[in-house]
């Protein structure tokens, strides 16, 4: 009972607010001095010669370091240092890509048995259909790689690297419509407002390259934009603003205004920014608004990006064979292929989280032609990214993820003809894959029934996927929390289990 009345629970209790409080607090002095003494005391823990010939600044710096070490986030030794998440927005059909269901060919056009559907909900788009005719893949499947994994003929390039992939066929989600489903995948909650995975990772682990943002987002310009993407999908939610994903534009100038305007040589820019920073700090001292901190950090980052971004965007050093590997689109900046190549260059610079989005996988109608176009636009570059990372040795510590927000139905939405059909949303099972750091290569995990309607073995929930991703980065998903509005939030909410069987 006493806890119930404890007014602490009802107070604004975000780290920023506490920081502000601390700054204004008369106890500030005591806190600081005691922390200082604490840091000195910690010194003995680390057995260095703290006072032997070290300058004052050095001692101060290492005091911080020791505190750093004590509360260092990696809860486990990480396997992955970077992540590239190739988000296939729209819900790619598992039937025409990875989940081979030969049985369906015999049942073409027959109604989906009720014993399979078991009265589960359908979307409003196909719930009123008079029949739910089963439709097999229009495209052929073949076995590939040493593992003999079945893959559709639509992805010949991905098929070449299939031995690198850990294919999870038993993904399932809770949302049946695009926006809640993507939001769920990216933030762990169907409703907007939570931080994105990339934001959580930057918040938890910090940056490995101070000259580039930790979390960069690339949206391809050549995906069909039938379903929108909102920038909140890579937003920081309630985390401090500096952890938000930075979107590079799809086009000739991924970051605008990097070059100095005509007539200005940029020589006094640093000076100008220093004065601006002083003004901002004055403002900060007066109001203590954490957004001012974020703004100062962003100006400084922008300044550093003036040199770092042209460097990373320049393709002058890329030989022809690299462009050929990623496909003809890779020379057209802003396409999926060009973004894959750019992603590799960002990963080379130790950008921690690169997220690509490619829209247009939402084939309610004309699926055979639609999905073929989607695969053509993405397959080669996806495979090239894996090969390129592998030859550079970057696949050692980079995790590559491919997948959409849900799968598609076994039955045809709309009219079924021999050459044409559509498929509706299906969150109960779908396929995604991971490759690289920390996951077993050449593995298929989980199984669906003959209709790829229900999971029959090793289901992997979206929260499980998120927990596994964090685990590979060295984070215990249950311990990475942020207190906001009186509650500690985490990416996986109150669920999530690391899928240990796919960890190498």
């Amino acid at each position, binding site marked *: 009972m006493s806890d119930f009345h404890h007014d602490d629970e009802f107070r604004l209790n975000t780290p920023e607010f506490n920081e502000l409080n601390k700054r204004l607090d008369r106890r500030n002095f005591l806190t600081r001095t005691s922390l200082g003494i604490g840091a000195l005391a910690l010194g003995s823990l680390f057995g260095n010669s703290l006072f032997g010939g070290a300058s004052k600044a*050095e001692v101060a710096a290492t005091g911080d*370091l020791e505190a750093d*070490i*004590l509360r260092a986030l990696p809860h*486990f030794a990480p396997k992955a*240092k970077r992540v590239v998440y190739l988000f296939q927005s729209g819900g790619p059909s598992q039937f025409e890509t990875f989940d081979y269901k030969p049985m369906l060919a015999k049942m073409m056009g027959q109604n989906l048995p009720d014993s399979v559907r078991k009265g589960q909900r359908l979307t409003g788009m196909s719930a009123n259909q008079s029949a739910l005719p089963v439709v097999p893949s229009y495209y052929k499947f073949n076995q590939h790689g040493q593992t003999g994994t079945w893959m559709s003929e639509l992805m010949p390039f991905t098929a070449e690297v299939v031995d690198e992939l850990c294919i999870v066929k038993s993904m399932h989600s809770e949302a049946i419509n695009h926006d809640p489903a993507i939001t769920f995948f990216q933030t762990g909650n169907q409703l907007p407002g939570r931080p994105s995975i990339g934001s959580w990772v930057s918040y938890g682990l910090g940056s490995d390259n101070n000259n580039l943002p930790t979390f960069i987002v690339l949206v391809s310009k050549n995906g069909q934009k039938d379903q929108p993407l909102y920038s909140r999908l890579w937003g920081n939610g309630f985390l401090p603003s500096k952890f938000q994903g930075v979107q590079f534009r799809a086009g000739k100038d991924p970051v605008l205004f990097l070059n100095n305007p005509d007539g200005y040589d940029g020589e006094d820019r640093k000076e100008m920014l220093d004065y601006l920073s002083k003004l901002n700090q004055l403002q900060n001292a007066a109001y203590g608004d954490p957004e001012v901190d974020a703004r100062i950090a962003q100006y400084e980052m922008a300044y550093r990006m003036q040199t770092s971004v042209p460097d990373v965007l320049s393709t002058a050093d890329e030989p022809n064979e690299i462009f050929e590997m990623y496909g003809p689109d890779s020379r057209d900046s802003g396409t999926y292929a060009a973004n894959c190549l750019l992603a590799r260059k960002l990963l080379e610079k130790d950008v921690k989280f690169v997220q690509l989005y490619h829209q247009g996988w939402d084939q309610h109608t004309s699926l055979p032609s639609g999905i073929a176009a989607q695969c053509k636009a993405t397959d080669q570059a996806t495979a090239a990214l894996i090969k390129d990372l592998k030859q550079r*040795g970057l696949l050692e510590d980079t995790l590559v993820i491919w997948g959409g927000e849900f799968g598609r139905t076994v039955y045809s939405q709309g009219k079924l003809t021999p050459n044409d059909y559509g498929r509706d949303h299906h969150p109960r099972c779908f396929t995604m894959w991971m490759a690289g750091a920390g996951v077993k290569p050449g593995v298929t995990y989980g199984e669906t029934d003959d209709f790829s309607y229900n999971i029959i073995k090793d289901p992997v929930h979206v929260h499980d996927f998120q927990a596994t991703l964090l685990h590979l980065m060295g984070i*215990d998903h249950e311990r990475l929390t942020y207190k906001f509005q009186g509650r500690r939030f985490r990416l996986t909410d109150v669920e999530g289990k690391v899928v240990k069987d796919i960890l190498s």
Partner: protein
Amino acid sequence: MTLGNITTFSGHLHPLVVHLPIGFIILAAILNLLSYRKKYENLKPAVSVTLFIGFVSAVLACLLGYILSISGDYDKTVLINHKLSGIALAIISGVLYYLSTEKVMLEVHIPRKLFSVLLISLIALMSYSGHQGASLTHGNEYISMRTLMQQVREKPASVQSAMIFEDVVEPILQNKCAQCHQGGKRKGKLSVDNLQALLKGGKSGPAIVPGKLAESELYKRVTLDPEHKDYMPADGKPPLSKNEIEIIKWWIEKAGAVEGKTMAQLKNPDSIQMQVGTYLGFHQPDNGTSNDEMSTQAVNPDIPMQTDTLAMARLRTKGLMVRLMLNKPVMLDITLPANSGVKMSEISNDLMALAKNVIWLNLSGNNFTDSDLHILKSFVNLEKLRIENNPVTDDVSNNLELLKHLEAVNLNKTKITDVAVANLKKNPSIKRVYTWGTAVKQPG
């Protein structure tokens, strides 16, 4: 609500109330002495009032003290001294008050200075009584010259050199038991002063029986259910930690409750090494051990638990990314950004200081030569090494032959040949060698 043990409750008030007469009587003496000066002459009447309050509180303290003495097991002689001196103190303070009242002052004239001397003597008596009381509560040795003179045992240099009784068991007992079982305060007639006293035990029998846990009263009591009336430490005093109990158990059962022996001199100390190390602060207790995800990870035991943070700080100021991969043990991932312009001579000392902690190392694209990279030999716990894009030759592979944890080596765009690959194959731990853009014909 039922009324609890009111005698115990009021008895426990004694140590609280007892400080009232102390304060008032000292205040009375101070006022008395001050009143000699002209400036403070007006304080004189206050002496009488202050003494009166001192007297009343002294009587109250005596009553409460008597109640406490009934409930506790205390050293008899010390108790009698404390009791008598306390009662005397109350009476004398009463008499002095009586003498200081105006009415009496007019009839019996006591020289002013005599009164002051009496008052100061009263403080002396109070000090004596107070010391006896403190000995009862905190033990005889609580305030003694021994504390000053005593040789403080130095913290042992390692778990192996730690004396099991002197460095480990005894400090535990001192910490958790001595408050009630030492010197003047020997509840249950038990003292934990030394091993002999433990073997002798108290009212309920020997506290320790070498080799026999079931007969060792001390072990039995600390492992009871905390709600049990015989549970120790009693009265909600801080209990022994799991770790401490394990150590005591091992000491009684496996080490025959010996004294004067180091860990190294005992048989099979391995099973308790971890606990002793934790107790002595050699490693932090692992808060995460209950986490099953943690325990699935096999961490190389050779990686040190600590690191040279000064070296870390210096490397960071030189632009290297020194990333923590884990804090227990301290695993580091160090990257020198490509084209940094930093020379090996500027960083090699600091890198060497961290060598055993470095698990991933990336020195790619910095124009390092074979001679720059001889230091790699010392990175014995290294798992992943990136030295691509450096003008190194086959010679560099010689440094990597003995690194028994090395898994992956990136030698892309270097001047190596098949010789290096053949060399690296001699190291069975190396699983992946990257040789893209080199003269190597047969990738490893």
